[in-house]
């Protein structure tokens, strides 16, 4: 296979979990709630998928459990942020710290145990002859196809439906949304929970496809990279796809450089995604210094109807 094709395949493989997490983050933040729990949610998603799959051997049950667990964590986050109006940053950190600890606790017994799953792949051999991209699309797994559909669905949802209009209002100006009869609290709950479930799915995706063995802290900061990706993508699902794949490439870049027999220590190569994240954020900060960044205006602010005391 050509190098471009190989690189693209790697980008998609490593980028899809990031994409799910980023989409989940976009959903949360568009509704005005910061989600810093991504790392913990991904780990909980991964460990839940691992345990359920080992217990039942069923992929669909595993995914169902992942949805359940991450939605429950999302519910807690929503309760703290929406109902109690707690600091969303601290609440997100709590989700991450709890998720990290709890996943380690739950996964202790299965740590290092290979899963041996096969996620179904959609075989489309008639695509094979198309140059460069043909071989990629001919043999993609279910998660990747779902992510494609999700990107388009979310884009259409946000820009072409009444609920999407509500969602945009929710993050920019909840007081207005409220006056217009949109149930701010209810919808914020909904989006936080669905967003959390998507981030959990990202963890499951990583475990079931990308590296099918549970190891404590296996996401290695990818949840946090997804938090940054939401900013890179400027809260736009289509852009999120490209950003996630770009970081997918970075993720595998170190490994590839190593294969070429370079004598750069692997530790430095592994730093690439983290360092690039910071550099890109700095570049965006510099470029957008005089412009609005596209951040939902009410992001991080709890909404209370009776605001006078």
């Amino acid at each position: 296979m050509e190098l471009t094709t190989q690189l693209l395949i790697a980008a998609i493989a490593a980028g899809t979990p990031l994409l799910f997490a980023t989409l989940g983050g976009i959903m949360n933040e568009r509704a005005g709630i910061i989600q810093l729990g991504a790392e913990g949610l991904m780990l909980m998603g991964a460990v839940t998928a691992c345990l359920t799959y080992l217990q039942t051997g069923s992929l669909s049950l595993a995914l169902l459990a992942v949805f359940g667990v991450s939605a429950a964590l999302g519910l807690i986050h929503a309760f703290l942020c929406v109902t109690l109006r707690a600091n969303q940053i601290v609440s997100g950190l709590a989700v991450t710290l709890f998720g990290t600890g709890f996943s380690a606790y739950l996964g202790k017994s299965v740590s290092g145990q290979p899963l041996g799953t096969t996620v179904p792949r959609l075989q489309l051999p008639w695509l094979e002859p198309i140059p460069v991209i043909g071989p990629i699309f001919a043999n993609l797994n279910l998660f990747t196809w779902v992510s494609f559909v999700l990107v388009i669905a979310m884009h259409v949802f946000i820009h072409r439906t009444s609920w999407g209009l509500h969602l945009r209002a929710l993050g920019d100006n909840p007081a207005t949304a409220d006056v217009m009869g949109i149930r701010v609290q209810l919808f914020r709950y909904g989006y936080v929970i669905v967003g959390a479930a998507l981030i959990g799915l990202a963890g499951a995706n990583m475990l079931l496809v990308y590296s099918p063995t549970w190891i404590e802290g296996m996401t290695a900061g990818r949840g946090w990279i997804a938090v940054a990706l939401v900013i890179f993508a400027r809260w736009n699902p289509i852009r999120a796809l490209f950003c996630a794949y770009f970081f997918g490439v970075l993720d595998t870049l170190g490994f590839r450089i190593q294969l070429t027999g370079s004598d750069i220590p692997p530790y430095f190569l592994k730093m690439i995604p983290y360092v690039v994240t910071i550099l890109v954020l700095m570049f965006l900060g510099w470029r957008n210094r005089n412009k609005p960044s596209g951040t939902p205006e009410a992001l991080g602010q709890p909404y209370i109807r009776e605001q006078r005391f």
Partner: protein
Amino acid sequence: MRQLPATEAAASQRGTSGMKRRFSFRLELDPSRSSAPWWTPILSVALALLLCAVFIAINGMNPITVYMRMVTGAFGSSFGITETLVKAIPLLLCGLGVAIAYRISIWNIGAEGQFAAGAMGATAVIIYFPDLPAVLTIPLMLVFGMLAGGFWGLLTAIPRTYFGVNELITSLMLNYVALLALDYFVFGPWKDPQGFNFPGTPMFTEAQSLPVLGTTRLHLGLVFALIAILLYFLTIRYTKWGYELRLIGANSNAAKNAGININKHILIVMLISGGLAGIAGMAEVSGVTHRLMYGISPGYGYTAIIVAWLAKLNPLGLIVSSVLFGGLIVGGYSVQTMGLPSSISSMLQGAILFFLIAGDMLSKFRLRSGG
């Protein structure tokens, strides 16, 4: 007639002039309760223990036995107590570091990386000047540990002040970078040639180690930590600079109007915040492990975040909560023999933070009847 609940009875007594409402409760912010009461940290710890008891029970064990074992492991013997204090030292220093940053609303979650940077900085002194006497080595290690940690803190502050980059993501990313750098050194150039491939430097000599108390492992780092706490207390309370920090923390817009250069303060505070975590890293290698090695921190930097929150950034609170979490780590180790993973303590930590923020917010509400 059935006895009505008081509020409902009152509502019906108002008769037709009062608006008829369903009997329901509602949470409302109470303006008179602007700060959370002192008991929420205690309550949150208790509730977190209760929640984790459920998980332990599901695991097929008696939670009371487990907790008793944890308590005796951490506080039941002089060995346990000194071990707990040994763990409390880095927590106290890192917790103080992040607390100072939180004072001016800088979300430094990079204490883990700053800790590792400090450990590396201190070890570099030993690697490059192996034969200095103790009177020179220890202060040099302290200075370099502090500078390395402070430098790592600045790496978070600079993107924030000059490029407007959110410090949360930067500081977290830098944790991974620092830990990878540490891996590079202990697996690579600094690895002990006689160490049977153990990922760590050669053991430090007597002159390169912090003095300890008697036969225990309790080292001079405790004094560093207590001095730091005292300085923090005095600075915030009595100095001009402390006043400026309080002002920025209370209202950064108003601070700007008072002519305070906030960016300058962010840089200084992150230098200090990282420097304190750096001291913790130095004290850990020089006082406890006596070598730089793989996995030197069991997540002190992350636990420190919870330590600082549980303490509500209060100096005395920091001491109490760091000892508590030190005990939690030691207790976590001691239940491993019962077949429970030691990660039970990190699970407890996360749960404590959950209950703490929920409790803090709930205590500001009051229950109101009526729709």
